[in-house]
């Protein structure tokens, strides 16, 4: 019995929402970055699902590019966190608010 595409898409959506929630509420910047990775993973799942159900490899190609960007983003993000930690001795997102009005 085949599994409908919507189930996979729903799974991706739920994971995306969880990642989004994590990004919005966590104070720890590492976990915020991890949440972004979660969201990207959710998108990957969606892309691969489309690729499979529409018989089109482009979804997988996009997934490769998303992974590339995710890797780059992680490297830059972590470098920023390291610099931030070195300068401000904190990685809590709500303790950094120099830009407030």
């Amino acid at each position, binding site marked *: 019995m085949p599994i409908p595409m919507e189930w996979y898409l729903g799974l991706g*959506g739920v994971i995306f*929402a969880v990642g989004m929630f*994590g990004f919005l509420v966590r104070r720890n910047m*590492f976990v915020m970055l991890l949440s972004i990775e979660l969201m990207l993973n959710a998108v990957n799942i969606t892309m691969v699902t489309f690729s499979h159900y529409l018989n089109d490899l482009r979804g997988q190609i996009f997934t490769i590019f998303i992974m590339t960007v995710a890797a*780059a983003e992680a490297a830059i993000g972590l470098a920023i966190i390291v610099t931030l930690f070195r300068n401000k001795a904190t990685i809590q997102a709500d303790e950094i608010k120099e830009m407030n009005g």
Partner: protein
Amino acid sequence: MILQAFFWYFAITMPIFAFLVISRKNPVHCVLWMLVFSIHSAALFLFLNAEFLAAVELILYAGAVLVLFIFVIMMMSMKEELAGELVIGEWPIAAALSIGVVLMFFFGVSNFAKGPSGPYTIEAIKAETNTRALGKLLFTEYLFPFEVASLILLIAVVGAMVLAKRKD
């Protein structure tokens, strides 16, 4: 029946793992749960006929990105940082928003109409193997984006080094 059971295993565990990723107090645990999540995600890719991506998911996420995370987390001593509130005070708003997004997502998914079917049927991919088919597409039609991606990675490498290098 077995396949459905497998799917439901993933459908139930993966959101749980995702939630564990965002809810652990110690970031190392978060990363380890993320590892578990990636392994499951890789397995899910296998079910979706994307074996190459499954391997790449493990090699790239588990082998590179998450190790990088663990490294950075372990190298910073932040004992005192672990104390204090886990989440910001506005978390109920964010929770409501997230639930709203999920509902909207379900609503949207239920309204999907099928797009045109592509040439890469499962049989076609199997005849050529997934890796080869992907490679052909990537190095012909998507050669330019591929090169751009390599440039992005290069910039990321240089940028990360410039950012994190201690200036003394």
